[in-house]
């Protein structure tokens, strides 16, 4: 059977998206593969399809719990029930249940911290694995913007699992990071499928404004005029909430907000309201967007500057999935880089926190339990945030076998200092891009080691862009939801009573 026939049979698609076929062919010919594919190109298909043709289980390591849940759901929606996620969402009982029946699952998603548990690794080691997939593989690299200490063990784990056929997936990784991935996983003879990070149908604009008052006014103006739907990214949750409220209050559009501080069920509702066009604009933090497939997003605005070029690209990449012309607008005002700098520091534990932690655990033999986890109370007592805690826990776990306890404090601090430098460099590089007089697109591509081969039109503010071509053509403003009674509403959703729109 041709690959295309299989694609149609299993997924109902007639053709592959960029890079998918190359990745699948490479895997089927038995080559380890590093794939850098833009977000939204259906990365999971790259292992799902070969998974059907190869004998054995597919183990997929994924760092983001929510994304993992989404992927499992998506598999199920496409009729694949032999899929499971092993992560901390499971209760002890559920976990044991899954492990007892692990043989029945073709696709096993797992979080890196679960792989740390020797017992679980032992069970997985007994399975016949057809593929070992590392999603978000850039998290392996210390040069990457999203380094996770947990991920640096994956090479070791891979070898403990008998070096199965490996697929490393990422959306955005510089050349250095890609090399790091290959080396860290111990992949020899690797096929690289690297599609361009360029999204020619997204015009890139940067506007400099005096301060946040001007930014706010500009946002109101832009949202009023631009073709919707759209997303506005913020670094602060509060700013996202306030802007959404303002857009509604001024009756500019149906807007909602989305950030990681909301409870999961509310987040699903907002996301689905957006997908079903009940909301036209989402004011969000970077928590929004992963695993969301909405084809017709027409604009992405950045109210704050992101932490690095990689995140910026991922975020603007949510626009124009349908291939139609879209626009990305970043609003900058002097001093904006201070916020990401502060955040970078906040993401890492401080020297004082590290000293405190090591002082508290000194002479405590049982500080690490069987799963080599520090006790949670230490997290609260030391005032660690979730991010800081995950970082330091992973780091200590990674170091504890190689670094003696007495030296660990120092090593941890040195490591943290190194991470901070990397993060600051990332922010600096983004700022350089903002300040640069050259073509925005070309500069971005160069950052990822690519050359701009074809000029696109419209390209960027440096090359010249008329924003009004992205303005909405007619005033097809969605009328406010009519005042239905609760009874009519219930009738509409439950007995198909044909209530008019």
């Amino acid at each position, binding site marked *: 059977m041709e690959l295309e026939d299989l694609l149609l049979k299993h997924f109902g698609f007639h053709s592959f998206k960029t890079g998918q076929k190359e990745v699948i062919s490479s895997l089927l010919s038995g080559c380890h593969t590093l794939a850098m594919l833009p977000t939204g190109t259906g990365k999971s298909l790259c292992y799902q399809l070969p998974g059907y043709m190869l004998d054995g289980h597919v183990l997929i390591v994924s760092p983001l719990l929510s994304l993992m849940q989404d992927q499992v759901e998506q598999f199920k929606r496409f009729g694949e029930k032999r899929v499971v996620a092993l992560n901390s969402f499971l209760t002890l009982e559920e976990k044991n249940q899954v492990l007892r029946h692990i043989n029945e699952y073709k696709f096993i998603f797992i979080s890196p911290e679960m792989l740390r548990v020797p017992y679980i690794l032992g069970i997985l080691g007994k399975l016949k694995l057809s593929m070992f997939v590392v999603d978000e593989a850039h998290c392996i690299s210390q040069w990457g913007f999203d380094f996770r200490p947990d991920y640096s063990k994956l090479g070791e784990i891979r070898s403990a699992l008998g070096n199965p056929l490996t697929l490393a997936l990422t959306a955005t990784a510089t050349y250095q990071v890609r090399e790091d991935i290959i080396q860290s996983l111990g992949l020899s003879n690797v096929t690289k499928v690297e599609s361009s990070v360029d999204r020619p149908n997204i015009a890139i604009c940067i506007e400099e404004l005096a301060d946040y008052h001007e930014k706010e006014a500009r946002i109101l103006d832009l949202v009023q005029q631009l073709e919707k739907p759209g997303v506005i990214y913020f670094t602060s949750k509060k700013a996202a909430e306030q802007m959404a409220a303002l857009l509604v209050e001024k009756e500019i559009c149906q807007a909602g907000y989305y950030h990681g501080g909301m409870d999961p069920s509310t987040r699903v509702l907002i996301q*689905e309201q957006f997908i079903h066009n009940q909301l036209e604009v989402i004011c969000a933090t970077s928590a929004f967007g992963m695993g969301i497939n909405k084809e017709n997003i027409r604009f992405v605005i950045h109210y704050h500057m992101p932490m690095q070029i990689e995140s910026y690209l991922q975020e603007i990449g949510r626009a124009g999935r349908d291939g139609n012309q879209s626009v990305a607008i970043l609003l900058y005002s002097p001093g904006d880089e201070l916020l990401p700098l502060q955040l970078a520091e906040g993401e890492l534990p401080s020297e004082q926190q590290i000293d405190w932690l090591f002082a508290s655990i000194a002479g405590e033999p049982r500080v690490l339990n069987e799963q080599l986890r520090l006790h949670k109370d230490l997290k609260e007592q030391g005032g660690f945030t979730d991010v800081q805690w995950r970082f330091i826990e992973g780091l200590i776990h990674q170091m504890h076998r190689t670094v003696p306890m007495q030296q660990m404090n120092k090593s941890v601090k040195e490591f943290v200092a190194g991470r901070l430098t990397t993060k600051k460099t990332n922010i600096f590089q983004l700022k350089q891009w903002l300040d640069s007089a050259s073509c925005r697109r070309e500069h971005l591509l160069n950052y990822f080691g690519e050359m701009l081969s074809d000029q696109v039109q419209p390209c960027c503010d440096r090359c010249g862009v008329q924003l009004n071509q992205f303005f909405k053509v007619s005033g097809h403003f969605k009328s406010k939801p009519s005042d239905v009674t609760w*009874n009519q509403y219930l009738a509409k959703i*439950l007995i198909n009573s044909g209530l008019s729109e």
Partner: protein
Amino acid sequence: MLHIELIILHCLQSIKNERTIYSIFHLLKGKKSSQTIQDAHLFSLKPFFGILEPMTRELFDRKIAAMLQNNLIIDCGGQRFVPALLGESLLQNNRLPIFINGWDYHQITGPVWERLTLLVQVASHLEYGETNYIPIQKNQAVHSWVKTVIKVSNISKREMGRKLYNELTKCFCNADGINPSVIVFRLTGFQQIGLTAEQAAKKLDLEALDYHLQFTNTLHYMIQNIKDNNEQFPLLAYLIQGFTENEELTLSARKTWNLLLQGYSPEMIASLRRLRVSTIEDHLVEFALNINHFQIDEYVDNGLQSKILDTSRQQGTKQLKVIKDKVKNASYFQIRLVLAKYGEQSWN
């Protein structure tokens, strides 16, 4: 609407200046501490236990400050307050949310809501014949529950939507002082995503906490109605089935229980949690009192157990000192544990 204020006034009136204002905060938050649980009983405030879980201390403080400013309460110093004249007249002239039953239902309110929303979403998509959609509840337990309901209820897929519609409208129709809108507009169906709590509050022009209160009141009304008229609501009845009874464990004991299940010894738990061993022993006694399947053999061997029980019976006492004098090799902890586990039986 002065719902929250009314409830705070009612609580203040009940505690009669014997507790600080924060005892009310803990009560409304449903804090699982022995003090709060005792207060709920002592001052007959059980219906309000745990009905405002989303409230923050900051919001509460702001509410109290506003009530003070509006002359609804009087500051007695030391974080104690009593209703002012205006507050008392408010209490006389307004009705408290009558269906609210925090003590009995606060633990199942969330799960029942998750079940209801998923059931409606599933029924709606069955009605419209659409199988591809994102479930708005992620909780796998709720997913399995819906599957079971569809299987055992014996309702055909085509009828599910109408059955549910009929039962829901029947459930709401005789409700006095209930606005079903607070619930209904938050439900998700085919190509119609429900509102978030905040959006619903805005639509109904309510403050966030007042909305939450009405929402809880309405949901508790539903639960009670379904419970009282089980046969009228064959489908909705599944919503409230299969919950374990309210285990009255304190929060701290719960943490110990979870560690115990993972195989830690009491000493290890004490060290891990940085608590005294005696505290962990108190928890074990709580388990012996509250958890039927909790076995104490690991802590007291069988011979000693019978000895303690026999002594207690023979001496006709539950006084630890008396038993300890007779059974010298038993520790106080072991005696408490045995009495907690078998104390009641030994008198039969």
